[in-house]
């Protein structure tokens, strides 16, 4: 384990040796000279857990699918995606709904989102079910385009969170570079997938006859943006005399895999919503823990964390099942194929989620904003903020749950 000491000038002199020191330095972005090591942990849980959840798993799955391409049973993967949706994807929607409606203060703060918007979406649902051939395709098209756009927002958001935690300040220039390649990658991915017309709950997703040059231009913009952002990162590393912690780049790397490297891999694309939901659930769970345990009167212990995560998880699995299974079953008496009903409801839940998601993270509650800078150990009983950097290293590499 690395045991760096910080000089008054901020210099860092590692005392131990071995290969693990390099990786610890790399993961934590520990300075090799002058630096401002953030007092918070870099991670919500620990380096490997965070890295896996915010993109590592998706990159590994993509690599695995690419290597073992021929021996894969596509149907098995689709079935896996459906089952996993019940425990990962559906709960992520429920978590958003739960977060908005769990207390009256949130509802009062955003009355249009809480009360009026669901009525508008309900109108679109009624129209789509009433005229599945005329209105539903447009409803589906909005979802088909908005969903990856929404993923972009989350990728940028996660990158900003980890950048903030690692002391990598993202100004307008860095943000332009980051958003540039993230959103260009989305346009590229959409235009590559659009001509094929994917199947969604038995319905063919409507396509747009986007010309090839749009796809080419988006790819060029993605490459240019990636290079620009890479140059920004390298400049920062040189100026700071330390490496940028890789966790900052994991969400963006995963995003490039989703939309560029795997743009034509239909099997992998079926899993992307799961990966997106995993990212979301990590943040939402941490937020929930901060609100329930981190607040006044909360019992800081691992036992409380486990109970709260279990309770919250169970609630959202149940809520997700109601949204995606219960509601369609409730409407199954309609003279429309059940899959169409389920598909239209799924689109409605998604679009509602895109709106609510953009609202609930803007709550100006100190507990809410503090949650995005916390480490779960703080709630497990150990005071984390303000510890020495030696302890930070230990926390991230040895003592994590």
């Amino acid at each position, binding site marked *: 384990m690395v045991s760096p000491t910080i000089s008054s000038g901020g210099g860092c002199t590692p005392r131990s040796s071995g290969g693990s020191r390099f990786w610890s330095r790399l993961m934590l972005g520990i300075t090799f000279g002058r630096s401002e090591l953030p007092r918070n942990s870099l991670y919500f849980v620990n380096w490997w857990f965070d890295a896996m959840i915010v993109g590592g798993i998706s990159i590994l799955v993509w690599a695995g699918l690419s290597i073992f391409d021929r021996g894969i049973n596509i149907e098995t993967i689709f079935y896996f995606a459906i089952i996993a949706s019940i425990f990962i994807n559906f709960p992520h929607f429920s978590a958003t709904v739960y977060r908005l409606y769990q207390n009256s203060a949130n509802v009062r703060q955003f009355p249009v989102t809480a009360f009026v918007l669901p009525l508008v979406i309900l109108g679109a649902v009624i129209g789509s079910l009433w005229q599945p051939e005329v209105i539903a395709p447009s409803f589906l098209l909005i979802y088909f385009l908005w969903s990856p756009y929404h993923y972009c*927002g989350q990728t940028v958001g996660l990158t900003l969170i980890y950048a903030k935690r690692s002391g990598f300040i993202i100004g307008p220039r860095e943000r332009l570079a980051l958003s540039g390649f993230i959103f260009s990658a989305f346009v590229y991915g959409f235009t590559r997938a659009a001509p094929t017309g994917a199947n969604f709950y038995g319905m063919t997703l409507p396509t747009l006859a986007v010309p090839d040059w749009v796809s080419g231009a988006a790819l060029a913009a993605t490459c240019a943006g990636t290079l620009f952002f890479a140059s920004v990162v390298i400049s920062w590393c040189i100026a700071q005399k330390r490496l940028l912690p890789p966790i900052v780049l994991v969400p963006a790397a995963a995003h490039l895999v989703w939309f560029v490297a795997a743009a034509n891999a239909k099997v992998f694309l079926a899993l992307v919503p799961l990966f997106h939901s995993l990212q979301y659930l990590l943040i939402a769970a941490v937020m929930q823990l901060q609100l329930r345990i981190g607040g006044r009167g909360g019992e800081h212990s691992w036992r409380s964390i486990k109970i709260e995560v279990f309770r919250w998880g169970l609630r959202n699995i149940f809520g997700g099942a109601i949204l995606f299974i219960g509601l369609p079953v409730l409407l199954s008496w309609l003279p429309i194929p059940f899959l169409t009903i389920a598909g239209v409801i799924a689109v409605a839940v998604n679009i509602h989620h895109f709106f609510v998601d953009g609202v609930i993270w803007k709550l100006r509650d100190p507990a809410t904003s503090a949650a995005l800078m916390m480490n779960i150990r703080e709630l497990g009983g150990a005071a984390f903020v303000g510890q020495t950097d030696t302890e930070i290293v230990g926390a991230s590499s040895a003592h994590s749950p």
Partner: protein
Amino acid sequence: MRTVRSLALVVFISSPADAAIETSGTSIPTAPSATFLAVAIGAMVACALSSFFLVGRVSERTHIALAMLIVLIGAFCLLVLFGEAGRNDPLPAVLIMAALIGMFKLMNRFEARSTSRLFGSGGLFSALIKIRR
């Protein structure tokens, strides 16, 4: 209701084949698209009236959110009417895609506290990052 139906009739001329207008009698067209448009226009009118009657009672943020809902409903109607063109012709396809992305960007600011940076918002958690700064 008759006024709304008449309005729907005017808008509906973009899709005459579907209209099934009965010129001989007094009945108003009841084609599904016309009914859908009538309801959508009604919803837009309701949002606008709500905003009007709530002046001074609700925040500016709520008024803007109601205006955004009008944009959303209107955009959806246009997509239903002209979306088919984007499935065949490249130019409408590009225009529809660009317009939808623009709408998503606008909707990012739905019921946001500040509208001063309407097009300067970022991703999912960016607002919180700003708070922390």
